[in-house]
């Protein structure tokens, strides 16, 4: 149970405080309700490039990092398809510096041309390092546009292609800021040995004066129901063949979400899971195989990904996955197997509540998409899932016409 206090400033900024007396560190987390799904199709990779620019100086403070490092703080950020999340940890006596820095970059940025030029290069190097110069690095650049034809989840956070990042202008950057960055489009969480009254004063002082901005209501294209199976084959300079299979599934806030997550756990969470025991250990078809859900806010993907053992035929590998799919569709899972996975989920949730920073992130994201208190309901939502529900969602999702399959073959095949 994560206890917290919550209030909202007049400008719409939501503030959450979690008191944890056991840690010498205070964690501050700000999540903005903007991600790669909010980009235009011809300007992708922008939310992430923008995250880099948030460290390039704000309207009154030339450097974000230096004053923070000077008081023993540390920070980072990440962008995904749904959100952009900024976080920092600092010794509790210097918490006000965190408020000063975060509020100033919410107020406005320096919009320095040099920062844009440099971060453009840095992000291009990131694109190369993580997606182009790694074996199997471009899988999601291929699988997303295969599975999504309308919804912006069809591109990865890094962007569709390097040219979109190359072509970003300072005007684009400014427009993006005023369109998405605002107190009324963010959640601030403070976790650590702090008092709500003290945070209230700091929040009023530093964030209270920032004007509310007009944030257009998000109106994204809905992905129509997929009606026929899609397949794509690519050849790459990799040592082994691989297969990726994506099925459309529900959104994170949908009641079926928890049963769907447990389906992925039955298949592949832990060494006792079905895919590992049967396809890796018994049949020795894959060197590794996983089933997982993307966990996205809008309707997401349930993905199988496997690397084949050298010499195994793609057809046999795919049939083996299909057999497991057929099994979970036709036979209701036993209570014992389901309880095992529920125990595992409970344990994973407990271990995610160890550090102040993790708790702060969990609270911020839950509040942004609905209600911070949902973090405390998660476990009950999983425990309530019945074997029949598991069977129902498996049948809903695992239909051939709902699938997109990527055959990722090595060149000399």
């Amino acid at each position, binding site marked *: 149970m994560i206890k917290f206090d919550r209030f909202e400033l007049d400008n719409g900024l939501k503030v959450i405080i979690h008191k944890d007396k*056991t*840690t*010498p*560190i205070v964690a501050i987390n700000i999540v903005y309700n903007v991600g790669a799904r909010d980009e235009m199709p011809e300007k992708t990779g922008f939310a992430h490039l923008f995250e880099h620019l948030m460290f390039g100086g704000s*309207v009154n*403070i030339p450097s974000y*990092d230096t*004053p923070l*490092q*000077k*008081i*023993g*703080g*540390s920070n980072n950020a990440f962008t995904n398809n749904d959100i952009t999340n900024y976080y920092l*940890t600092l*010794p509790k*006596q210097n918490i*006000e*510096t965190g*408020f*000063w820095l975060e509020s100033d970059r919410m107020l406005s940025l320096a919009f320095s041309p040099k920062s844009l030029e*440099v971060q453009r*290069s*840095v992000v*291009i*190097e*990131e694109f*190369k*390092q993580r997606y182009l*110069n790694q*074996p*199997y690095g471009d899988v999601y650049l291929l699988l997303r546009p295969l599975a999504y034809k309308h919804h912006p989840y069809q591109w990865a956070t890094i962007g569709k292609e390097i040219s979109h990042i190359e072509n970003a202008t300072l005007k684009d950057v400014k427009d993006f800021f005023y369109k998405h960055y605002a107190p009324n489009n963010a959640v601030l969480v403070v976790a650590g040995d702090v008092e709500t009254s003290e945070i209230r004063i700091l929040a009023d002082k*530093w964030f209270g*004066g920032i004007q509310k901005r007009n944030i257009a209501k998000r109106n994204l294209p809905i992905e129509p129901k997929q009606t026929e199976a899609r397949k794509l084959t690519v050849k790459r*300079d*990799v*040592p*082994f063949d691989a297969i990726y299979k994506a099925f459309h599934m529900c959104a994170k806030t949908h009641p079926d979400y928890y049963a769907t997550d447990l389906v992925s756990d039955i298949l592949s969470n*832990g*060494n*006792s899971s079905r895919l*590992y*025991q049967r396809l890796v250990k018994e049949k*020795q078809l894959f*060197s*590794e195989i996983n089933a997982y859900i993307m966990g996205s806010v809008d309707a997401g993907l349930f993905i199988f990904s496997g690397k084949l*053992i*050298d010499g195994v035929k793609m057809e046999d590998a795919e049939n083996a996955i299909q057999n497991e799919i057929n099994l979970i569709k036709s036979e209701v899972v036993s209570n014992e197997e389901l309880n*095992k*996975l529920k*125990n*595992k989920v*409970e344990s*994973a949730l*407990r*271990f995610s*509540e*160890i*550090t*102040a920073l993790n708790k702060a992130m969990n609270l911020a994201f839950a509040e942004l998409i609905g209600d911070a208190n949902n973090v405390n309901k998660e476990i009950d939502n999983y425990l309530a899932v019945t074997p029949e529900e598991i069977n129902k969602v498996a049948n809903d999702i695992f239909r051939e016409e709902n699938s997109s399959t990527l055959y990722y073959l090595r060149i000399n095949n």
Partner: protein
Amino acid sequence: MQELDRNIQPHTYPIDKIDFIQAKKKVLANGIPLYYLNAGDQDVIKIDFIFEAGTKYQNYPLIATTTNSLLSEGTKSYTSAQIAEKLDFYGAFLQKSTDRDSASVTIYSLSKHFCNVSEILEEIIKYPTFPQKELDNYLLKQKQRFIVDSSKVKTMAQRKFTNVTFGEKHPYGSTAKLEDFENVKQKQLLGFFNRLYSVNNLKIVLSGKIDNNIISIIENKFSDNWNNSIKVEIDTEISNNIADKVILVEKKDAVQSAIRIGKLLFNKLHPDYFGMTVLNTVFGGYFGSRLMTNIREDKGYTYGIGSGIVSLKDAGFFTIVSEVGSDVCRNALDEIYIELEKIKVEIIEEDELNTVKNYMLGEIIRTFDGPFAMSDSFIALLEYDLSYDYITKYIETIKNIKAEELNKLANKYFNKADFLEVVAGKY
């Protein structure tokens, strides 16, 4: 209301005191030291079994990691599948890891299931059987992973750097080769296990919600003499002459090249270690470091660059690590050497040094954030038989060291002629 001046940083307070909970010690009847750290408010437990059984003790490649990895793949009473089933049923997470000096088994468990989990733990630690079928399956998977890894420029550079720095024959310098996967025998694993996974070569560390009940579970299970062998120390003397100090491992189609530049240094027991840690932080040890500021934040040649001092039980080395655009690789190398020269010639300015000092003190606080972080910090001391005084001295050095001393260290240890440069990819 008074006008808010956003140009001025709010009043800051120095970090004068760092509080943390210390581990306590108890010796089991068979002599195993048991350390426990009761901290945190969640009902969770982490237990580490640390054996001095790292890769430096192996007589053949891959034996140390394979032995460690197969501990849970079949024991006297349970099959691999049964162990997996039981651990998953109790929601426990098992981690096994092997480095050059030690090998460990770590379990994360909810307190309420710890008693059940410990039954399996006892089997894994005392009675593994290394079944041939499991060994074959493991090698099949690992060999493929090895091949995938070998195609990454980062791995290419790292392996070459290790081989050349220590010499390929040195216990710290050898890395596995593809053909080694064909030669791992069950007999070798049993031999390695019997030789090194003994009562005399083990330390146990408990952290989280630890009470007398938890401690007595461990005492009941691990106080007998199940394996009494005595480890023979090995020779780790380095006698290595590096003939060629600039090495290119070519990969023609690489869009980025991996860089490793470094040299042998010393481990954390050396009197200059603390000072060099401060110098390293200025140079390449944090986001605001000179390498990051110049090569990422000014030139945009890379997504990340850093440097570090790696401390091993019997040696240590310094390395600079990055992946940079192949088209700007030469420029990046030039800039690295410019920074190396600059830190020798110019005295570090007060303001920069203060930033680094405070950043480092903040990092120390972060290494004591929560029970598991505290236990990891403690284990890092334990490996070198150090007490918490070491941290006190480290904090004192950070606070008091002068720019002039750092300059002397830079001139003593940062001579370009001593550095080995490895690039994997293309220029």
